[in-house]
């Protein structure tokens, strides 16, 4: 016992050598805080799945068993056919949810990053085709399609972070070609569209595509810059307007970040924090909550564990800014994949 405490004292002395650390750079700290809060704001605006997680809770074990049996039976006796049939469905059709689900599953099963990017760009094309078919049928294009298209591109660029240099070059070229194709699709659709809502949606999509094309073009010239840009997230619209909060001498923030130009943020120097409060702003700062470690599967599976895909849900491409609504997420399906 005595040995143990002596050893502890000895080790403690050595460890004390790394205990004192230089003060944190307040500018960097403030920037990091503003980025996190901007991510939090955009996360709060994104639609989230509701109720899925409760199915998997321990206390509902019996229900789980029944569900599992039903799902397995369903898959064995016609699940494949149903999923197959769903592939042609549009957002306003009943099996569309199944189509989205099967896409997500196919992505989850994709271990090779290059193949995953390829698959994601296929999905971008599928979304564009859905837009075309809806417009041809005179139907409105739900925003969900645009958001998902944007998410696929985002995920593809995130996946690129895991590639080595030659593979990154190849993949960026492939992404560029396919984004150019989609850009042309949008041009074509814009010519044949009359509805104001759809026109706006297509214009937003085209703007986003061109911004991502720009990122990819730059990335081909400078991989490091590309990686940095993807890690830090993209700004779409007024993201640059996020200003870091003022900090006093003690390193304590005096207020919340402000998002200018102003929407009706009801709290001076703060955010609209009423969970049920109205958000009167058409769009918010669009930043990416992604960190550098983007591998979707990894060894450590504990909560928030290592190697989890932190791929963001940077779907908000609204062009407005201002109030920072933090009402709880909506009920959209398919836009918030694990």
């Amino acid at each position, binding site marked *: 016992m005595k040995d143990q405490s002596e*050893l*502890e004292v*000895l*080790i*403690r002395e*050595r*460890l004390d*050598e*790394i*205990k004192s*650390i*230089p003060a*944190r*750079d307040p500018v*960097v*700290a403030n920037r*990091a*805080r503003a*980025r*996190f*809060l901007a*991510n*939090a*704001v955009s*996360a*709060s605006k*994104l639609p*989230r*799945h509701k109720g*899925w*997680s409760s199915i998997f809770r321990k206390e509902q074990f019996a229900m789980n068993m029944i569900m599992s049996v039903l799902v397995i039976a369903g898959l064995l006796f016609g699940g494949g056919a149903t999923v197959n049939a769903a592939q042609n469905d549009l957002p306003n059709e009943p099996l569309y949810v199944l189509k989205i689900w099967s896409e997500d599953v196919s992505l989850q099963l994709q271990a090779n990053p290059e193949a995953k990017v390829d698959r994601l760009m296929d999905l971008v094309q599928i979304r564009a085709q859905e837009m075309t078919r809806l417009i041809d049928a005179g139907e409105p294009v739900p925003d969900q399609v645009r958001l998902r298209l944007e998410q696929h591109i985002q995920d593809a660029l995130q996946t690129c972070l895991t590639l080595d240099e030659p593979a990154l070059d190849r993949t960026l070229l492939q992404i560029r070609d396919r984004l150019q194709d989609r850009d042309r699709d949008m041009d074509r659709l814009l010519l044949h569209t009359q509805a104001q809502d759809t026109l706006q949606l297509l214009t937003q999509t085209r703007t986003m595509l061109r911004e991502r094309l720009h990122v990819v073009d730059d990335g081909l010239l400078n991989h490091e810059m590309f990686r940095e840009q993807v890690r830090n997230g993209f700004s779409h619209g007024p993201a640059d307007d996020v200003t870091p909060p003022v900090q006093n001498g003690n390193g*304590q*923030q005096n207020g*919340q970040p402000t998002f200018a130009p102003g929407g009706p943020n009801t709290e001076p120097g*703060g*955010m609209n*924090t009423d*969970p049920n409060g109205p958000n009167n702003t058409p769009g918010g700062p669009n930043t990416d*909550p*992604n*960190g*550098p*470690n983007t591998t979707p599967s*990894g060894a*450590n599976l*504990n*909560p*928030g*564990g*290592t*190697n*989890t895909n*932190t791929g*963001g*849900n940077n779907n908000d491409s609204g062009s407005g800014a201002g109030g*920072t609504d*933090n009402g*709880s*997420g909506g009920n959209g399906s398919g836009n*918030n994949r694990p």
Partner: protein
Amino acid sequence: MSDSTSYPVSATVSEEQKLLHLAAQLNTRALAEIYDAYSSGIYRYAMRRLGDGAVAEDCVAETFARFLKALQERRGPREHLQAYLYRIAHNWIVDFYRNNEQTFELSEALRSEADIPEDEAAKHIRQKQVRKAIRCLTPDQQNVVALKYLEDWCNEEIACVLHKPVGAIKSIQHRALKSLQKLLAETS
């Protein structure tokens, strides 16, 4: 913990639960409060283990990004928020060293001690030795050593991070000290 500044704003369990409940709804004020309460502690923890400010900042950013993502996916923590965040940070650091061991050591070596006074240089070398010795421990041992001796956590708090009983923490700690003594003797 000895450093009172690292304590969360939400000092009580019920306050923390309330905060977590709001955070689960992605309430930005709650998230800001959580960030303000824990980010500097996480930074200090990362900095002590990594010895590099920029990488420590990356660790903080990634820790909170993963936390946010977990909340979005409705699998965020329901209790022991601090333990949860430190666990993410620890996992990130272990991963970081696993993936960047060689490049990180090289960049540390390139950060020459030639430009700094002799005693500072000696201190740097000793610090590197200590960090390297910690890295050679198992992930659990690393975590116990870092939280117990660098962050001054008690065994109960560490047990929350590692999801292990206090007895197991004590035994990990005992083995870690033995290994560390051996490793430090070797590196010195």
